[in-house]
Structure formats: C-alpha cells, structure tokens
C-alpha cells in the first residue's frame, strides 16, 4: 500500500507526466509507421534515456509501448498495412471500413478499445504484481535458471515457423553473452585482446542492430503504401449507443490480452487474433466479419493494448521478459543499474509503482493525443519507406554512439543489422536472440550457482519443486508445439486434397 502511495505521489509530478506524454506521443507515431513498432521504437529511444533519471526513462518507454500498440491500428485502417504485427487482425475489418468511408469510426473504435484494454492490463498489473513478488521471493538459483530456460524456449518455439531455427538463434544469443568477464569468476572470455569487449558485447548495440537496422534494410525493399480514407479525422469519440454495443467486446478482449501478455513468447498479435476469432465465433452475424464489422476492430485492439500490462507482470516480478519489447525495457533497467525482479520491489519501490500507475496515465494521454493529433499522424505515415529507412540507420548510429562514445559499438550495430537481415530472410526468427542476450547472463549465473551449491549434482534441478515444474513445462511445450503444428499441417493438407478431389469429381 505504501508503494502505491509513493507511486501516486510520483505520478503527479511534472517530470512523470512529461515522460508519459512524450513516450505516448512517440509511441503513437512509431506504432503508426509501418515496419517500426514498439520494439524498434524502444530500441531507438534507449540511448536517449542514458542521461535521464531511471523513473523518467522506464515510464517514458512503457508509455511508448502503450501508445505504439494503438498507433499500429492507424496504418492498418488507413493504409491496409499494419504498423505493428499486433495490428494485423485490426486490418481485416478496419481497412474495409475505411474503404466504405468509415475511417473516422474505425479509428474511434480502435482508440476507445485500446484505452479499455490498456486499463484492464494496467489494473491486472497492479493487482497481481505484489502477490507474485511474494511467490518469486521463494525462488532460488535452480528456479531462476529454469524460469529463464522456460521463457527462452517458449519464445524460440513460438517466434517463427521452426522451433529448431528458433533454438539456433537462442544459442547464438547465449554465445554472445559469454563474451567478456565471466559472471562468477571474472575470467575474461572471447575478448581477443580487445578492451571494448571486457564488459561484454554491447547489448544495446546488438539489440538496435538486430531490430532497428535490419528492419531498415527490409523497409527499403518495400514500396510506400497508399493512403486511403477520409482526411477529416477529428472527433474520434464514440456515442453512448456505440459504447453500449461495443463494451462487452472490449472487456473480453482486455481480459484475453492480459492473460496472453503474461505468457512468455505469445505476444500481442496472438492476443489480437485470439480475441478477434472468439468475437467472430460469438457473433450472431459472423459473415459480416472481414467486410467492415466494427466489433472486428474493437476485439483485437482492446486485446493488444491489454498485453502491455500483462507482459510487464513477469518482467517486474520475476525479471523475465516475454517479448522483444519487454526485453528492450529490461535492457533499459540494466542501463540504469537496476535488476527487474522481486528485489526491485524492495530496493526501488518508487520506480516500480510509478511505472505501474503510469500505464493509466499513458491510457489517458493516448486517448487525448489519439483524438487530436491523428490528422498529423495520418499525414506523416505516408512518408516513403526509403526515407524512413535511412533516418533509422542515421538515428541508430547516433544513439548507439551516444551510449559509450565508442565507434566500436556503431560497427557492432551495423554488423548485427546485416546478420539480422540475413537470418530473417532465411527464416531464423530474431526475438529468441534478443531474449537470449538479455536472459543469458542470468541463466548462466544461476546454472553455475546451482551446481556449486549442489557440488555438481544435477538433481538439484529436480529436487527444487519450482525448478522442476518449469523444466517440465519447458519439455511439454517444446515437444507439444511442433506436434500441434504438424497436426495442423496434416489436417490442412488433407482438407486441400479433399477439396481438389471434390473439384475434380465436379462435386
């Protein structure tokens, strides 16, 4: 309770309100720009936070995360190009609404649904974080090792079409974090005599390279999308009748998004699609979906904003990020000398509670900025992708250099941009690598501490109930997810075969 009061007091300061406003505004902008999104936005902003206070930094980036989840719907509705992966479900009904001249209504529904989802996610974070911290305090090194492996495996399994490729890039990430001083003995590894590597590979440069620079290379390959819809986008507020009609959909989406956000690796795009599909199944007019049904916009939008609060729960309570965006946020905590997890609630309760409560302020700012700044935003998203890509490269270079004033880091960033481009081209997903870079030191340190405690006995991972539980879950998911994908593929092939036969037989 004291923590919440401190959070309220901090939230009402000019500094925090400014952080929320800036973060939210930038978030809507980067979310609306096709190809950017929250992870790239945070990656580009992290270097800027180096000189700022920890509270200002994390609050601004969390607000950016919230704003970008809404911003993604702007280009999905107006350009038929999702600004963020989570807005793909919004596009299905949002763009047809825009083509029918209902862009204003679609954007209004998206904004209100995002606000409801954001509030539900924020509320879940406030209510669940403190009890979960009590559980997390019982975790020892084996449990932390197991939780880290679980988070990493889930992301590797779900991030791309191939589990093995996901695990390959996760291993690459783990290899990267073994560069530099060993976390237990201080022995220097893989530095090749370079003083720049003694503190390890520059994590932020790697993240910016993999996410922002490789994205820039992808952007130059795409052409600019065409702006569709009306241009008078003010007054996005819904009528009382519209609220009454859509509120159950928004609430359901909010709950789904929160639950999905808590799971590592699943992400907001799954939340959006899950909410969309469920709403369609429950609808009395499922045939209207895909043709401009307003509930088809409300359902995914409330879900993807609710994932923001949900995904912060494992990050703040266990120190486990479940997505690239939360991994970037975790990197920001590290940059300011803070370690997310139960200890953070004891060592820096002001930061934790201010961050949690700032989500509500972010929703309020998102609502106001989304209503009044949208005409400008709608114009800016028509910026050619080529211009955007070049600006990303230039911005990434300046941001990475500003962190340590080392040109070495800028070369690392460019190198990982090229590596990320080719890995993505050949079907290797990047999120497991980002997570491995962030979680790697924790996984290695707790693995070795566990073996030191048990004098080399691996049974310590099975005798610890929490560790055993998470390792068992990891094994189940790693085996179950490819099996489910295989079953789905076989079913799809059988259905195709059946359809072909029916067509050939003239049925």
């Amino acid at each position: 309770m004291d923590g919440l009061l401190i959070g309220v007091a901090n939230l009402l300061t000019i500094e925090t309100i400014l952080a929320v406003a800036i973060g939210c505004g930038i978030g809507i902008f980067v979310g609306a720009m096709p190809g950017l999104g929250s992870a790239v936005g945070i990656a580009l902003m992290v270097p800027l936070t180096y000189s700022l206070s920890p509270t200002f930094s994390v609050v601004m980036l969390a607000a950016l995360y919230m704003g970008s989840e809404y911003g993604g719907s702007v280009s999905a509705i107006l350009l038929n190009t999702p600004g963020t992966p989570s807005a793909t479900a919004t596009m299905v009904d949002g763009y047809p609404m825009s083509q029918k001249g209902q862009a204003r209504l679609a954007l209004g529904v998206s904004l209100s649904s995002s606000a409801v989802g954001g509030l539900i996610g924020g509320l879940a974070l406030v209510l669940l974080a403190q009890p979960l911290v009590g559980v997390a305090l019982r975790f020892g090194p084996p449990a932390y090792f197991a939780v880290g492996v679980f988070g990493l495996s889930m992301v590797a399994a779900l991030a791309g079409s191939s589990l093995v490729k996901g695990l390959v890039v996760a291993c690459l990430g783990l290899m990267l974090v073994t560069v530099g001083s060993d976390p237990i003995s201080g022995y220097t590894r893989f530095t090749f005599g370079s003083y720049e590597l003694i503190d390890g590979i520059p994590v932020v440069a790697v993240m910016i390279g993999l996410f922002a620079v490789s994205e820039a290379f992808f952007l130059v390959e795409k052409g600019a999308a065409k702006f569709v819809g009306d241009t008078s986008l003010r007054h996005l507020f819904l009528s009382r009748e519209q609220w009454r009609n859509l509120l159950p959909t928004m609430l359901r989406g909010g709950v789904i998004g929160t639950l999905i956000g808590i799971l590592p690796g699943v992400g907001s795009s799954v939340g959006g699609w899950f909410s969309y599909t469920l709403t369609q199944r429950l609808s009395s007019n499922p045939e209207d979906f895909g043709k401009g049904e307003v509930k088809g916009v409300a359902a995914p939008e409330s879900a993807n904003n609710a994932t923001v609060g949900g995904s912060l729960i494992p990050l703040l309570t266990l120190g486990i990020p479940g997505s690239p965006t939360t991994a970037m946020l975790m990197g920001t905590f590290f940059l300011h000398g803070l370690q997310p997890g139960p200890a953070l609630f004891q060592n820096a309760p002001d930061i934790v509670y201010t961050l949690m409560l700032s989500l509500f302020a972010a929703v309020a700012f998102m609502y106001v900025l989304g209503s009044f700044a949208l005409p400008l935003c709608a114009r800016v998203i028509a910026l050619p992708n080529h211009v955007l890509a070049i600006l990303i490269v230039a911005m990434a270079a300046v941001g990475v250099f500003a962190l340590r004033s080392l040109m070495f880091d800028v070369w690392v960033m460019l190198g990982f941009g090229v590596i990320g481009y080719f890995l993505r081209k050949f079907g290797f997903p990047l999120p497991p690598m980002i997570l491995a870079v962030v979680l790697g030191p924790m996984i290695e340190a707790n693995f070795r501490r566990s073996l030191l405690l048990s004098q080399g006995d691996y049974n310590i991972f099975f005798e610890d109930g929490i560790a055993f539980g998470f390792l068992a879950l990891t094994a189940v998911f790693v085996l179950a997810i490819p099996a489910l994908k295989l079953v789905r593929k076989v079913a799809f092939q059988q259905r195709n075969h059946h359809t072909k036969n029916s067509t050939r037989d003239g049925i």
Partner: protein
Amino acid sequence: MMRLGTYVIGGILLIVAALYVFGASNFGVTFNPRDVGPGYFPVGVGALLIVLVLIVLGQETFGRGSVSWVDLSSFIPLVLPLVALAILYILGIQYVGYFSSTAIFLIISLIFLYRIELKLALIVSLIFCTFVFVVFVLLLRTSFPTGYLF
C-alpha cells in the same frame, strides 16, 4: 535459393560453433560438473548449437525446411548500396566528423539511391542534424567526433 542459403548459413554457423567450443575448452573446462569453470556453460551451448544446426541442415536436405523460397533479388539493387553507404558513413564519422558525414550520408543516399528530390533531401538532412544537435549535444551533452571538418 532457400536450400543453398540455408547450407551457407548452416556451414558458417557450424564453423563458428566449432571454433567457439574449441576456444571455450581452453578456459579450463572439464566434463565433471563438480569442477564448473568459465568454459563449462559455453562448451554446452556450442555443442547444442552444432546439434541444432545439423538438424536444420537435415530438415532442409530431406525437404522439411520451414521456408520454401527466399527472394534476394532486391538485395543487390536496394539493400547492398545502403549497407555500403552506411559503412562509408561510419568511417566518415571517424575521419570527417559526425555532423558533416551525417549530412553527406543523408543527402547522397536520399538523392542517388532512392531518387528523392534535392530540396526534400536538404530539408530532411537539415532537420535531422538540428534535432541531433539540440537533443544530443545541447541537452544530453554528448561529444561527437569532429574529424577534419566538424
């Protein structure tokens, strides 16, 4: 294209993983878990990577690869010039100076690579450099390399 690319990437990863395991084994690692040293974890990760890459190559060879075709046709005309310019840009930061090389990079890449009008390229370059100067130099007190120019 996909198969050849996966073989190239797989081959590179195998070499990297083998060198990594070899390097890690010099850190005083033993296979006895009672003697957990700085090389123990890296050797395990490297060995796991070798096994996983072999599985990926096996899947590709026997037709269970996850992606059937990769389009690299736009890499040489669109992406490679940007990578080359980015390399020159980073070299330029060191030798010519941050602001002059940034302005040159933006103008050249916008005009020559992507056929943006000179006026727009100059405006974009001016706005970006002003933004960096105000935010990074004036507010965040970052000092950039000045090189031969500025």
